[in-house]
């Protein structure tokens, strides 16, 4: 579709979450398509790739970018709550997140240049469900919950279960992603964001790793990982995570880390990179992170 065709989609701006949920519910019941639009950094770009739709079948576009219930970043009792429509720039500039969840700050700074940071959102990142979603990888490492709202109320889905396949999620047609929540890692937790792409800004990852570990006497007591662009969905590296929670991190060998990483990913060749390069980089990023941990834990 060209921009002139896209311009004519029906568009509404619900003023409350309740109104949004009512519209979603009514339209899902009639099997009518609805699009929730926040920053548009994916959806608008993708319009040029889809064929023109029958004019009677145009989806209704609902603007959620200013919906109060989806805005803001709050910390309540050591738990962070980030509105689905909070932008990456707002996340990047949040002082509590930069102190307690620097993995998220670093991700937001590299997800794209400032023009993309100013528009893109975690809610959009999750709903679009690209396997290269940097935001999803960081949220997996933080063991976040996705909070979904509908006319029937709220429910939460752990990030590790949110994606069901390539560009598919557990969000139902009548649900909206309203926020994500996670327990803040304790001060001093090890957090890392490593993005490997063609250049530092404005590049989609070839491989990205998010990692969070809390150590207690050389042993991991909280561990979370997220890796982008190495499988049909962003993955949480469960085998690597189990090694992160091993009784003694110093006993975890590079061979074990290599084998665990290989087991947890399923990279492919595509226009951005090759399966072999991705597998190599994925292993290297995991080993590097554990090496940093062992160095810092050494007496």
């Amino acid at each position: 579709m060209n921009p002139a065709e896209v311009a004519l989609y029906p568009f509404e701006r619900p003023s409350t979450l309740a109104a949004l949920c009512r519209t979603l519910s009514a339209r899902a019941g009639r099997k009518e398509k609805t699009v929730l639009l926040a920053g548009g950094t994916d959806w608008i770009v993708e319009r040029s790739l889809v064929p023109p739709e029958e004019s009677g079948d145009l989806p209704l576009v609902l603007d959620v970018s200013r919906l109060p219930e989806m805005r803001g970043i709050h910390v309540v009792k050591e738990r962070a709550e980030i509105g689905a429509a909070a932008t990456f720039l707002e996340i990047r500039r949040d002082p509590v997140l930069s102190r307690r969840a620097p993995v998220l700050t670093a991700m937001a700074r590299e997800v794209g240049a400032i023009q993309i940071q100013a528009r893109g959102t975690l809610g959009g990142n999750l709903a679009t469900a690209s396997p290269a979603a940097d935001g999803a990888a960081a949220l997996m490492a933080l063991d976040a919950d996705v909070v979904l709202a509908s006319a029937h109320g709220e429910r939460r889905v752990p990030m590790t279960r949110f994606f069901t396949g390539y560009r598919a999620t557990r969000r139902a047609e009548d649900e909206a992603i309203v926020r994500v929540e996670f327990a803040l890692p304790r001060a001093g937790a090890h957090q890392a964001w490593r993005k490997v792409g063609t250049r530092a800004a404005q590049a989609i990852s070839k491989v990205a790793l998010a990692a969070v570990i809390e150590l207690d006497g050389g042993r991991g007591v909280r561990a979370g990982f997220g890796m982008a662009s190495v499988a049909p969905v962003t993955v949480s590296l469960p085998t690597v995570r189990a090694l992160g929670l091993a009784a003694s991190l110093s006993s975890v060998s590079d061979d074990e880390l290599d084998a665990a990483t290989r087991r947890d990913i399923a990279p492919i060749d595509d226009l951005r990179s090759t399966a072999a390069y991705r597998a190599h980089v994925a292993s290297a990023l995991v080993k590097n992170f554990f090496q940093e941990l062992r160095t810092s834990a050494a007496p």
Partner: protein
Amino acid sequence: MTITFVVNRRSRTLDVPPLARLLDVLRGPLGLTGTKEGCGEGECGSCTVLLDGVPVNACLVVAGQCDGRTVLTVEGLGTENGLSGLQDAFVNEGGAQCGICTPGILMAAHALLAANPRPDESEIRESIAGNVCRCTGYQRIVESIRNAAKGQASREPG
């Protein structure tokens, strides 16, 4: 749909298709052709304008989301009497070559200097990381922004 927003310090009310691109609204009904279209998919930054003071790609912002907001384009940088200090610095330093990317880079740099009057080189480079220039090799652009920052500092009351 009818939208009312402030463009270059002037309130404008327009009837536009809700999902028209801000880029097309600026260049069409508002006649502000200083904002250029490059890639049209949020990669090149040529269409950068400030939305509530923050750089955005006008090709990825829809008109319906601009109701009640404030937009600044390259036409709003200077005054009727002359260019802004930043624009002067680009002229003096040779920061523009073919010129298609220049309005977008000016807007990104304007936002940087408004928030951070004394940026270091890495901050300058990061601020224009979303703006692609295929002529200059960036060095003259970085120098222009650095000189604009110096000029801005020297004009501040001591």
